[in-house]
């Protein structure tokens, strides 16, 4: 593991911690964008260039903007005076600590982890496109159909809403 990889991982985790612990929601969205950029950098270091740039495009670009829009539309931009945690927060933190302990123990003690690092694979855009259009063409069409179903359902709902307002 190179030191740059470790630094990127620490930045990602710090961004995630701040995204989950700051009081002001706009600051949370900003820390979330930092965490997603860190994950994109981790992808780039793992020789998955296409996924890394898609991560920047989808998460840092689209989803962060969507979340900022939702924060401002629900008027929760300023920090609340009351507590931001639910009543059972101690149990939640305990459960997540147990989850991390179990996962970490399994990762560190597993015998299925290969010891040697294989040579870097070639995942150029051409290879990915070839695989998507030959071997994985059925999953691609299914996922396009699912997202199309979501869009059709959203359109239907807004039409009903408009007609409801008119009557």
């Amino acid at each position: 593991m190179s030191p740059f990889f470790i630094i990127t991982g620490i930045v990602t985790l710090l961004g995630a911690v701040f995204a989950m612990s700051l009081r002001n929601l706009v600051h949370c969205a900003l820390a979330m964008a930092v965490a997603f950029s860190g994950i994109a950098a981790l992808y780039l270091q793992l020789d998955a260039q296409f996924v890394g740039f898609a991560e920047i495009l989808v998460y840092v670009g689209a989803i962060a903007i969507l979340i900022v829009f939702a924060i401002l539309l629900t008027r929760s931009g300023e920090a609340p005076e009351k507590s931001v945690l639910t009543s059972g927060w101690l149990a939640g933190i305990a459960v997540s600590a147990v989850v991390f302990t179990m996962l970490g123990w399994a990762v560190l003690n597993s015998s299925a982890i290969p010891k040697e690092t294989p040579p870097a694979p070639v995942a150029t855009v051409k290879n990915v496109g070839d695989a998507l259009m030959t071997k994985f063409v059925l999953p691609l069409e299914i996922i396009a159909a699912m997202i199309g179903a979501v869009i059709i359902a959203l359109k239907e709902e807004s039409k009903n809403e408009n007609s409801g307002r008119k009557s």
Partner: protein
Amino acid sequence: MTALQGCLLISALLFAIGFAGAVTRRHAILVLIGIELMLNAANLNLIAFWRFGPHPEALTGFIFVLFSMAMAGAEAAVGLALIIAIYRHKKTSNLDEVKELKG
């Protein structure tokens, strides 16, 4: 510690942070951010196993992550639309005050 174990530990910690935030925070949008962090932890796992697994030339983990990102994008759009619909209906996005479906 091998590079694969490092990746898996980072993603396990990311999952735990996202889970803790989704369970403990009151605001609905923060719960959604926690879910996004958990999805990204799973994607990081898939990429790590693709990179350090026995047959990286098959591109299976890579393509799986692309599909998973498409699903996560659709899921985030639907989730935020739900949050805005609940806000318009009840004028709150505090999860402790949305109790209609509570058993």
